[in-house]
Each structure stands twice: as C-alpha cells, then as structure tokens.
C-alpha cells in the first residue's frame, strides 16, 4: 500500500531535464566579502514598488529600514550594508530597463554587524501584527517569483489553511540554494515552519523534497522531534515539481482549479528560503538583507553557493567566483528553465534571485528553428494541460486576442513546452510576448 501511495506522488505531464547539480551540491554556503557599491531597486518584488525613506548622503546601518511598502502588495527594504546613501535614482534592472533604486556606498571600515535585537516575541503578536511584521521585514517568496510573503499569509474569512507545504523541490537544473539551506540550517527551517504553522493555524507541516536530495531528506527527518506535526515527503524528480500547484497535486493528490489559489484547497506553499528568512527575522531579528545564491554553469571558474547581500552587483559575485571563463556567452539570473538572461554585469542581486548561471557558446548556440510538425510533445509536456503549439502559432500570427480562448493566462511560463519542442520553436517566449501585449498594449485614443 505504501509503495502504491508513493507511485501517486507525482503530477501529470512535465519534463525531465538533466539536473547538473553535482557542480555545487556538495559545496558549503560561504559568505561573499563586502564590496563597495550596492544598488537596491525599489521594485524587486511583485506588486507596488517600495517608497524610499532615506535621502542621498544619509548614513545607514546594515539592516536599517530604507524603504517602506508602497501598498498592500509591497514590502519594506532594508540596507544590506552599513554605509552612506550615494544616490536615489534610476539604475538598470534585471529586465534591462532603468528603474528607481537606492544606491548605497558601503563603509570600508564598518564591522557590517547587523544591529538587531534578540528577535521578536512572535507568539504575542496577533495575526494582523504578524502579517505587518512580515511585510516590514521585506520577506518575499525566495524561490524566484518574489511574491510578498505576507500576502499569502493574509487569508480571507471563511478559508481555513489545513496544511503548510514547504517547497524544497528545487526542480530547476543547476540551482542548489534550497538544498544547501536544508542541509546546513535544518533547525532554522523547522523553527520558521513552526512559526508559520501556528500563525496560519494549520494542522501539519509537509516538507516536499525531490528524491534526488536524499541527504536533505535524511537530515530534516533527523531533526524532527517525535510527535511534531511535521512530515517530509520525497517527490519524484521531475520538472516543474516545484511549481506550487504541481507540488500540491504530488503531495495531496488535489488539483488546484484554474484561476484559484492554493489557499482555496486549504494549503499554503512557501519556499525553503522564505521559511528560513521568517525564522531569521522572528528569532534573530535579522530582516531580509541577504540571500543564498548558486553561482554555477560551465562558464564560471569556481562554482559556489554564496550568501550575498542584496544589491550586490553580479560583477562582484562573479569576481569572487574567480571570474568568467573565456568564451562566456550568456548569463542567466535564476534557473535555466525560468530565469532571465541579463544584459549587464552591473545589475544587482535581488530578493528573488536564486542563481547566477554562466554559459558558454556550446550551451547557448541557438539551434535552427523548424516549422511546427504538430507532434504534440509540447501538449504532453505542459503541466497545465494547455495547447502550447496552438498558442505559439497564434502568437506568431499576432492574433493575441484569440489566445485568451486558449487560456493563455493560465500559463506559468515554466518552459516545459520549449524544452520538449523538437523544432526548437521559442514557444514560451511567444507566449510571454502575447501576455505582455495583452496586458500592456496601448489602446489608441478613440
């Protein structure tokens, strides 16, 4: 019977990319030395950008609040270093556009010790105060989307959260940040999970980990005290196992209907990094000022798992890793399936940046695109049961409005279809283009 249940721990469709994690999976997390220039974009989470509360020339200390949330779906920002605010202006972001940011020059002689208290008596906080505290701490989903964590915690009346699901799948190739966090800080993970579980009023905590990380599964199981409402669920190695709806299907065998959220089936999903950030804030008083980043790929001299202060330019991170190998062609922020290529080494590490991947000519050469042969592999790959082939054709013909009938907005851009396509059609890019057109197209004035 148990074996039978294990077989079900899966979702339908998806793809099996080679995981390439051996490069960094065994490397302990190390700290990057502090550099000089830091750039904190005000809009590094999904939603409304934060509002700066410091002025140029002002002295800031590490962990000090430098920007307040600009609305409900927005979070605070804290200075990653002790130093001086150099400028508040427009700086190039990950998407290539210039956006408002706070530039901070680190003080070369400061200790860079976080000036934090002993943490917060979280048990005494009401739910509203707790949500407000998470928002001010600047905690966002650390898996890559950077969706403010407090918004997920704000459950409307009538909805009960029964399970807290912790996402340790890390299904993207190359990335090992969650893996290393689980290995090195299992106590922090379980402490953070307990805070979240009690505040959400959930019955149990479930930690979903892909089966290719047996060491992480073992270590966490060792740290769970008997009787704790926590269990670890090994999951099949498959992409996108870490997409929250896929994980819910794998763990609970429940499908989240299109257009609904995990909370509608009584589940709250959070990334391992987010949970550790919660523990760091409420138990140690450290707001979100740094994160773990995997620097890997064939183009980097010394791959590593690093603790990087937010706002560090990619240039400094790469320099610490021994620089780029000759023949480097492309750098990606995030994972290779869903991450975005960056056009400049000066863009900063953001809250949602889980990896910096460096590729050479051999991996990035664009293969010749052939016409769609209607083989249907993208349909078999799509975990959301869309028709990527049809969507791509419509997008190529610029028939964006027609794509709504094919549920283009249910696409999460996981990249399975493009990975599966034998004709090398950039399906996800075409779908992204259409979604951008449908949401941002300027309607001519009538």
């Amino acid at each position, binding site marked *: 019977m148990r074996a039978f249940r294990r077989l079900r721990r899966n979702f339908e469709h998806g793809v099996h990319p080679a995981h390439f994690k051996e490069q960094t999976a065994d490397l302990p997390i190390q700290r990057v030395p502090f550099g000089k220039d830091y750039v904190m974009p005000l809009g590094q989470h999904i939603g409304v950008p934060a509002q700066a509360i410091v002025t140029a020339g002002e002295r800031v200390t590490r962990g000090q609040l430098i920007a307040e949330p600009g609305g409900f779906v927005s979070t605070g920002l804290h200075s990653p270093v002790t130093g001086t605010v150099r400028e508040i202006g*427009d700086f*190039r972001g*990950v*998407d*290539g*556009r*210039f956006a408002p940011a706070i530039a901070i020059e680190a003080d070369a002689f400061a200790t860079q010790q976080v000036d934090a208290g002993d943490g917060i008596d979280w048990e005494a906080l009401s739910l509203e105060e707790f949500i407000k505290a998470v928002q001010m701490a600047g905690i966002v989903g650390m898996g890559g989307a950077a969706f403010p964590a407090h918004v997920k915690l704000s459950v409307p009346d009538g909805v009960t959260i029964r399970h807290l699901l912790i996402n340790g799948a890390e299904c993207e190739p190359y990335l090992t940040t969650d893996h290393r966090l689980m290995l090195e800080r299992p106590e922090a993970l379980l402490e953070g999970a307990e805070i979240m579980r009690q505040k959400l009023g959930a019955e149990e905590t479930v930690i979903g980990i892909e089966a290719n990380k047996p060491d992480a599964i073992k270590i966490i199981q060792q740290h769970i005290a008997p009787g704790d409402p926590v269990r670890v669920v090994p999951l099949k190695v498959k992409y996108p196992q870490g997409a929250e709806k896929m994980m819910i299907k794998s763990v609970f065998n429940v499908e989240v209907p299109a257009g609904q959220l995990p909370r509608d089936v009584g589940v709250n999903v959070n990334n391992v990094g987010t949970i550790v950030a919660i523990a760091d804030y409420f138990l140690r008083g450290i707001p979100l000022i740094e994160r773990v980043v995997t620097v890997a790929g064939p183009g980097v001299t010394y791959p590593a798992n690093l603790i990087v202060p937010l706002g560090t330019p990619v240039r400094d991170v790469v320099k610490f890793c021994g620089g780029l190998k000759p023949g480097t062609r492309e750098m990606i922020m995030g994972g290779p399936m869903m991450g*975005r*290529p*960056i*056009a*400049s080494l000066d863009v900063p590490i953001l809250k949602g940046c889980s990896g910096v991947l460096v590729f050479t000519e051999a991996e*990035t050469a*664009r293969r010749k695109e052939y016409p769609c042969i209607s083989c249907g592999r993208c349909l078999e790959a799509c975990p959301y049961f869309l028709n990527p082939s049809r969507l791509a054709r419509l997008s*190529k013909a*610029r028939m964006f409005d027609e794509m709504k009938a094919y549920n283009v907005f249910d696409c999460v851009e996981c990249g399975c279809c493009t990975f599966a396509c034998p004709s090398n059609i*950039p399906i996800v*890019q*075409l779908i*992204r*283009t259409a979604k*951008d*057109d449908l949401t*941002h*197209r*300027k*309607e*001519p004035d*009538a």
Partner: protein
Amino acid sequence: MNSLLVAPAIMVGIGLFFGTILAIAQRFLKVDEDPRIEVTNELLPGTNCGACGQPGCLPFAEKLVAGTVDPSQCTVSTKENIEQIAEFLEVDAGSQEKLVSRLRCNGGGLQAHQIAEYQGFEGCRAAAMVSGGGKGCSWGCLGLGDCEVACTFDAIHMNKNGLPQVDTEKCRACPDCVAACPRDLFELVPLSQNLFVQCNIPLAGEAATQLCSVACDACGKCVADAAPGLIRMENNLPVIDYSAGGPAAPEAVFRCATRSIVWLEGEQFQDQESRKAGGV
C-alpha cells in the same frame, strides 16, 4: 396516400403563414435607410482602421450623411476620393491636416550602443521582454519591425540602419504602429510641422550619450535658439509646443550635435540608406 400528403400540406401552410407575417412586417415596420449611406460607404476605403475615431467605415458613412463629420476626417482616403464624397453629398470636404507617423528615436544599429546580443523570436515585443533586447538604451527603437508587420498600408519598412522608415505618401495616420510599438515611440504629427524631437531618453549629459551616440543630452541649445516659449525642456527632453510659442524655424536645430531634434521635410531618416558608420 393520404398521410403522405399531410406533411407537405402542413409545411406549405406554415410557409404561407410566416410569409404573410413577413410581408405585413415588411410593409409596416420598414426602416428607411438613406440610400446615400451605401454609396458613401462604397467610396470609403473600407479598411475599418478607426483612424477617424469611428468604429469602422459604415458608421463613418452614416455620420457623413448625417452631416456630423467632414469627409476629410477620413485620413486614409486619397484626396480624390474625399472630393468625390464631398461632391456626392454636396458638402464641404473640410480641411483636415495630413498626419504622419514619426518615430521618436534616431538610434539605429549604428548609433545605439549594443550591450548584449539578442537571440530569439524576431519581434520587438518579444525582445523587449528579454533584458530589453540588447541595446543599451532601454527607451529607444528595438529595430525588429513589429511596426512593419502591423502597418495596414505597407507604409513602414525597416531601413538598413534598423529603423522604421515611414513612407509619408502611404502613411494614413491610422494608429496601428502606435499600438504595436512596445516602447511607445510612434507619434502622429501633422506633416506640416517640421520640428521634431527624435529621441526618447530621459537621461541628461553623459549618462545619455553613453547609451547612444545620437541621444539627446539635454543641453538645451535648441530651447535657446528657437522662438521664446516654442521649445521647453521636460524630463530631459525638448518638448515643442506649437500653440504657445512663435513661428518654428530651422535655426533651432542647427546647434544640435546629435540630431536628436531635426527639421523634417517629408520623410524621416532620408539620409540613412547611405549613412556611414557613426561614432559607435
């Protein structure tokens, strides 16, 4: 035999019954449509582009016959067609200034500095989503021709420099290219307005010229050289206000080192087919 005849008889009966109702309805509920609407509609181009502000050509024809719009408000028709319509309806053709679409960017492949190479689907909107498409300037033309595809009238062609060349003869000032451009660079301006700012960088000084060799560095010389009040600087770019200032004269552009403000007669980028590599 009998039962065979019943079915046709019922069908004929039903047919006659509804036929009578239709005949009566046609007589008493008839809507008189002005026959001129159809003729006018025939004379209109029939592209349903919406440039006149109406949802299509037929509603425009209805308004023409009603006399609430001028024939010349159809910017897509040729002059002869508009005169024909005016003659037919016995109204004044009205005077609508010819508008053309102009690009607020002069930074083609030779001028805008490239910071990365873009590989992927050849479309501006697609490229804009991937780190801004490779050009250092994140406000300028991406040069992949979404407007060329969108243009209904075959008026836009990408030139050798990677900028859309708008054929002022063919351009009907429908807003297709305005809507297609992901950087919102097209502007519909009267052909008779010669002064035009072809840059969209909200940066000043070296910050701007680092990104593009023909960027407006907000030096303000054009403001000083033009008639008082005609040009003002807004957001580090010159803004030409025809209503506020004196007459526009080509002197305003003489000292512009980067040609980001120009005196246009006819097409934009006329010299670009043969332009030598500029200071990249």
